[in-house]
């Protein structure tokens, strides 16, 4: 008896919590089984598409809401839009089948598939007419430096961004390895943490005698000069392989090669803004092979994140 008076508040509270949480459950959970008949699976339910985004390069702003409106209008589904700056979170979400459509860096795509995510790249976003998808990882030295090529980086203090950065570490490591320089022991690596810091420190020439950064940040500085650059494959828009075939086809059609003007013409008025036009001009189709460079880099640099 004594025990019961002690435990009932606990039980009651636990029950209340459970009921409360259950009441919050989305009413459409039952639909999951309905969608399961064709073996297809959605991240949430068949009326919702989950769109996840990690900015590809540092100057990417992700005000893609009009793109969501466009997808919603074309497919007739609700689009849930999630942004993250953490690759790991989105990769895990992709591996767990918790996203239907996503836009993340080429490297993230390779890593996610290596880790078992069932996704297919369909296209990559460009921001200006005539552009190729992607951006450049640039090797920089202070203006007037004696270093004229990558081979000259040997034994110097070299600024990288951080060990998980594609254009600020992995591509540079690959390029250094190709010159016969071990990026860990052949140079004194300094992790600047950010692209602009890498540029600044290299420009000052004290903490770093040479460095690597993304082209958009390098262009802002007049204290450094570029001695080499490598194209980083553009960020793919991917679709989940578990979506029903016809929906996948439809998404490929509407997102494969579309310009901002076509989106506006289709009736999505929100797309007709400077903010959206500044981050989106069109998409160009890409396929899995497009990312073979990254796989090659994975192999050569033995980067941890490439391991499946």
């Amino acid at each position, binding site marked *: 008896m*004594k025990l019961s*008076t*002690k435990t009932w*508040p*606990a039980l009651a*509270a*636990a029950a209340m*919590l*459970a009921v409360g*949480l*259950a009441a*919050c*459950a*989305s009413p459409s*959970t039952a639909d*999951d089984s309905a969608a399961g008949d064709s073996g297809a699976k959605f*991240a949430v339910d068949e009326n919702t598409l*989950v769109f*996840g985004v990690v*900015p590809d390069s*540092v*100057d990417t*702003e*992700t*005000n893609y809401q009009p793109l969501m409106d466009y997808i919603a209008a074309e497919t007739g589904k609700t689009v*849930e839009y*999630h*942004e*993250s*700056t*953490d*690759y*790991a*979170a*989105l*990769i*895990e*979400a992709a591996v*767990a089948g*918790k*996203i239907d459509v996503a836009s993340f860096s080429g490297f993230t795509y390779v890593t996610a598939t290596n880790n078992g995510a069932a996704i297919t790249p369909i296209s990559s976003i460009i921001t200006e007419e005539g552009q190729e998808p992607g951006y450049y990882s640039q090797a920089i030295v202070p203006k007037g430096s004696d270093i004229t090529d990558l081979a000259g980086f040997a034994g110097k203090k070299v600024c990288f961004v*951080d060990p*998980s950065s594609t254009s600020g570490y992995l591509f540079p490591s690959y390029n250094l390895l190709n010159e016969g320089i071990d990026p860990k022991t052949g140079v004194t690596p*300094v992790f*600047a*943490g*950010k692209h*602009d*810091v890498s540029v*600044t*420190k290299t420009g000052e020439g004290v*903490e770093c005698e040479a460095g690597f950064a993304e082209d958009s*940040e390098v262009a802002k500085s007049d204290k450094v000069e570029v001695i080499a650059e490598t194209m980083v494959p553009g960020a793919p828009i991917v679709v989940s392989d578990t979506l029903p075939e016809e929906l996948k086809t439809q998404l490929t059609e509407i997102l494969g090669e579309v310009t901002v003007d076509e989106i506006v013409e289709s009736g999505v008025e929100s797309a007709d803004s*400077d*903010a959206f036009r*500044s*981050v989106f001009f069109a998409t160009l189709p890409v396929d899995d092979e497009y990312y073979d460079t990254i796989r090659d880099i994975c192999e050569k640099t033995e*980067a*941890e994140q490439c*391991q499946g």
Partner: protein
Amino acid sequence: MSTLVAPSRRPAEASDARSIAERAPKRGRSPERIAASLTLVAIVAAAIVALADSGISIPSMVESWGNAERFFARVGPISFPEPAQLLYLTALTIGLVLCGTLLAAVISVPVAYLAASNTTPGPGWRAFGRFVTVLTRAIPDVVLAMVFVLMFSLGSLPGILAIGIHSIGMISKLFADAIEQIDEGPRLAIRAAGGSKWQEFTSGILPQVLPSWVATVLHRNDINLRGSVVLGYVGVVGLGMEMSFAFKSLNYSLGLGIALVMFALCIVMEVVSSVVRSAMLGVAPTGRGLGDRLVRRVRRSRSGSSSGLDTPPSSAARPAGTPSSAARPATSLEAALRRPWDALRIRNTVWGWVALAVVVGSVLICNIQWADLITFWAKVPAIAVQFWPPDFGNYDAATMFGAMGQTIGIALAATLLAIVVSVLVGSLAARNVAPNGTVRASMRFLLVVIRGIPEVILAIVLIVITGLGAQAGTLALAFGGIGLAGKLIADSFEEVKSGPERALRATGASRSQVYASATLPQGMRALIGHSFYLLDTNIRAATILGIVGGGGIGYYLLNAGQGSNYQVVTAIVLMILVTVLVVEGLAMWMRRVFR
């Protein structure tokens, strides 16, 4: 009954025909109290709406449980960094946190002196002191760290400054409170004897407030140690940064290994700080056997009445309120004039030197680039220009305010969930509520464990189960909040007056009746206070969870920081600042009204 009570109170109205309810003395109902109650109800309602909105769905979580299993299968065995590196990182983390906390403690002394009503030179100074307190508290340390990382870029200085400046808020407030609570006697005596202001402070105030100050600093240091995990995510060196690198490169086994080290570190520091505190606060100087004392300390620290870490700010050399050996008869005048080197004094001196060694070691390990502090000022104008004016960049205001709203929503929902569970867990962890020692100890232990798990890790695991978005963020924050609020609630419930409880028990009330009628009502004010504190903490933390895809403003803040869109950073920081200040204002109002 009515005839018994009424005459004793008002004999003249003994024959009053009104019912007992009408005649019973009533609490005055001020309009302000009603307004505050309504606000409280509105906030709770908003929290419920936010919770419903967050889309937490138990069935789909159960369904996705397999994801978590697959995730953990992929993680594999937990691994650790190499011993030498681990040792260095651990030392660096502790050193950095210590330096930051000490910096805050040093700056807090003058701030508290100005802010305390009994020492302030004037109302203007007092307002200034309070302003510094509120402002430094309002800017989240994560935001400070992000900005300092931009300015200083490399080394430990950004972390030290971020921790230091943010901690001034809490430390100086509690320092000022301690000054306001002193016995004015000694101070007045010194003034009457012609002592200077400085002498008044060092001899009249300092000895009285020192124990409380040390406790405050230790407590804050513990909070800062936990916080350093998150700071690593925005580029502050130490274990946190290594952990974030590990997670970013999907090396979960290493990341979890570092998290485990961090967790152990937090618990070790709680024990150490408990030992330091009991030694400094004069709890155990009565000369008992070492083993006896150790057992007592272990029990004390396990009971959770501890916090903080080993930071006696060199002041440990001064025995705080320890009883002197005055009882012994002086053998000679000469001897009486000198303080004898008794065991207590030797121990205190040793403690002092150890503390000093720890502090010096911290400074050394941090390898502070002192030159940065000088060259930094030359860079300030150029950087400051980039931060001003605030601007949303390419994002429209609706998106930004929406994201801020989502952050607040997540914080509200998480606070509600956490408070509901922590009232339960915290009550069972309170000595006067728990049915027996085992329940209490296990609940206290549970709270320590929960507090040790970094929210960022929790959020990533939850994303696997729940998918991206507010759901993962809310649950991660709610879980972390239980550790914090549960402990605070347990402590507050233990501090309620035992009179009403004893009175009820004497009338034969059951345990739950005692709880419902005596413990809970008395602890209600503290409960409201803790809820606001948790809300405040959660708003800061929700910012961080935005980084890992938990939704809200954090994503935009980090994205803007990484892309060096400093004007956007300023705009977002201002939004967070205003939000935190509003919550702070509400909390102060509530505390005043529900006094």
